């Protein structure tokens, strides 16, 4: 493991936004099937965390026959440790708007929405300004497409796509059963393409430079670059665009503070990787480390040896307990019981064997919870309890 190749930095997302008019004009004059094929051959996967192939999503929606369709940009970035979408929307909003309009052309949708989390209300005035400039240009080139901002109001679960539709329809943000999938029946039960902010920004890159340029970056199954939100015990917290497929050892060598004990990959709903597993862990979709069905994409939180993993888990579980929508029992009761359980073990009220019961409960939640939130609690819970069992007890 001594042969460290450096992390491969890239600079696509935050560069060259100024040519958006040209990119838009060029691409809305291409036939939809050609654009879909371009996306599919780039192998772009959703950057919100779930990793569904973006080209396929567009294709499914394009094939449905409906007089009304929607394009939605998911900007409900709420996963702990993730802050890249905010940066994209404040620095290169036109890339996102352009990709939405191209998507509208591909699937034949005339309306687009940006679901912006309530915490990012301060972005709204600038974003609205960008939207009016964008719509003005759309009129100039006779493109019938409008974009509106829909504000969230502080509910993490609304990042789950079907909960987001419920919220936009004026209801509690409770996830729906799937299928039907959004591509067939989404917002207002109409075919809806819903993409993460970063996914749209990458689509812009692909429509600007071609699929090959994107495909040549990264590794098999994990093509292209990804924005990483780096925080925690690191001398250089921030947002970095890196090629997928890097090893965690290389990442820690670059970003760690020399004393990194563990890295949380993919936010609270992702996995905690302890030091002894850095070398065997790569970051990409086949490693299943970012592939969780909630907006987890690209959160990297580093913990050094001064941190108590009990406190970390306690904080995560408190988060999930509050953010669980309460609709299904496994998640509502499961989150409460996991939190209560680890506290009971810590105080000695229950013996260490209780942790095994809790692990089984987490596993049950993984199989029985209705949506990605409840299903992914087990990711961080099990990876922390299994790797730092002694810290849970003493």
């Amino acid at each position: 493991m001594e042969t460290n190749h450096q992390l491969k930095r890239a600079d696509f997302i935050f560069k060259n936004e100024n040519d958006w008019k040209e990119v838009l004009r060029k691409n809305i004059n291409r036939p939809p099937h050609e654009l879909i094929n371009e996306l599919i051959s780039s192998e772009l996967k959703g950057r919100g965390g779930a990793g569904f192939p973006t080209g396929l999503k567009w294709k499914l929606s394009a094939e449905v026959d409906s007089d009304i369709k929607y394009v939605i940009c998911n900007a409900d970035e709420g996963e702990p440790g993730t802050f890249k979408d905010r940066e994209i929307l404040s620095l290169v909003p036109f890339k996102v708007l352009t990709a939405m309009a191209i998507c509208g052309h591909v699937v034949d949708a005339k309306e687009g929405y940006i679901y912006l989390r309530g915490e990012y209300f301060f972005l709204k005035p600038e974003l609205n300004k960008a939207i009016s400039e964008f719509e003005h240009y759309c009129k100039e080139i006779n493109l019938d497409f409008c974009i509106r901002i829909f504000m969230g109001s502080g509910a993490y679960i609304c990042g789950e796509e079907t909960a987001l539709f419920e919220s936009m329809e004026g209801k509690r943000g409770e996830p729906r059963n799937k299928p039907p999938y959004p591509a067939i029946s989404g917002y207002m039960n109409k075919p809806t393409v819903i993409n993460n902010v970063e996914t749209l920004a990458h689509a812009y890159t692909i429509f600007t430079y071609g699929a090959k340029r994107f495909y040549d970056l990264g590794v098999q199954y994990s093509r292209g670059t990804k924005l990483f939100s780096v925080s925690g015990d690191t001398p250089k917290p921030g947002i970095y665009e890196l090629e997928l497929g890097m090893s965690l050892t290389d990442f820690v060598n670059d970003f760690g503070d020399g004393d990194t004990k563990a890295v949380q990959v993919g936010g609270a709903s992702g996995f905690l990787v302890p030091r002894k597993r850095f070398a065997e862990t790569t970051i990409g979709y086949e490693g299943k480390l970012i592939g969780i069905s909630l907006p987890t994409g690209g959160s990297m939180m580093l913990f050094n040896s001064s941190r108590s993993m009990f406190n970390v888990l306690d904080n995560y579980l408190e988060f999930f307990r509050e953010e669980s929508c309460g609709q299904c029992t496994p998640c509502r009761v499961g989150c409460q019981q996991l939190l209560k359980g680890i506290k009971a073990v810590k105080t000695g009220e229950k013996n260490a064997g209780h942790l095994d019961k809790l692990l089984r409960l987490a596993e049950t939640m993984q199989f029985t919870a209705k949506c990605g939130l409840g299903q992914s609690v087990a990711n961080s819970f099990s990876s922390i309890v299994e790797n730092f069992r002694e810290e849970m007890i003493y």
Partner: protein
Amino acid sequence: MLDYCLLILFSSHYFKPMDTSATLVKNLADQYGRSRHNLLPILQGVVEQEKYLSESSMIEIARELDMPASEVYGTATFYSFLEHKKMGRYIIRVCKTITCSMKGKNQVLLAIEDMLKIDVGETTPDGTFSLLQTNCLGFCHKAPTMLINNDVYTDLTPEKVRDILSEYLTKSKEGGQNGN
């Protein structure tokens, strides 16, 4: 919860809401529309003006949108930014998620509590500040962080937070209808 819903349902027949709320709700409904999918923007509009959703404003929204008040209440209480308890003019939300917690959130919170003489969940007696904790604000690389109404403050220290609050106090004493 059920009791409260029933209370709202019954009181809607007898209770005459305050006029300001009623006008505000009517204006918002005119602006956004009266369909169910316009509910959230209307709730948000009321919260923006009045800082919280009073019982009377929820009843008024139900009337405008022709839906049960219990449904308005059910939706409103799902969202953590739609307060349904009277709030101060400036709502402070301190992020308590993992990175902010690790980077000194507690000291920041103590500094605020000490300066304003209120605990988390309380409002100052003069109605200027309310103090709350919230989940991840999306500024983990600049932790600890907080929101005051819609404005973000990052890289907080106890000293920094005292300076920020002093500014708000001055601003609030100078008066100004909304102070935002």
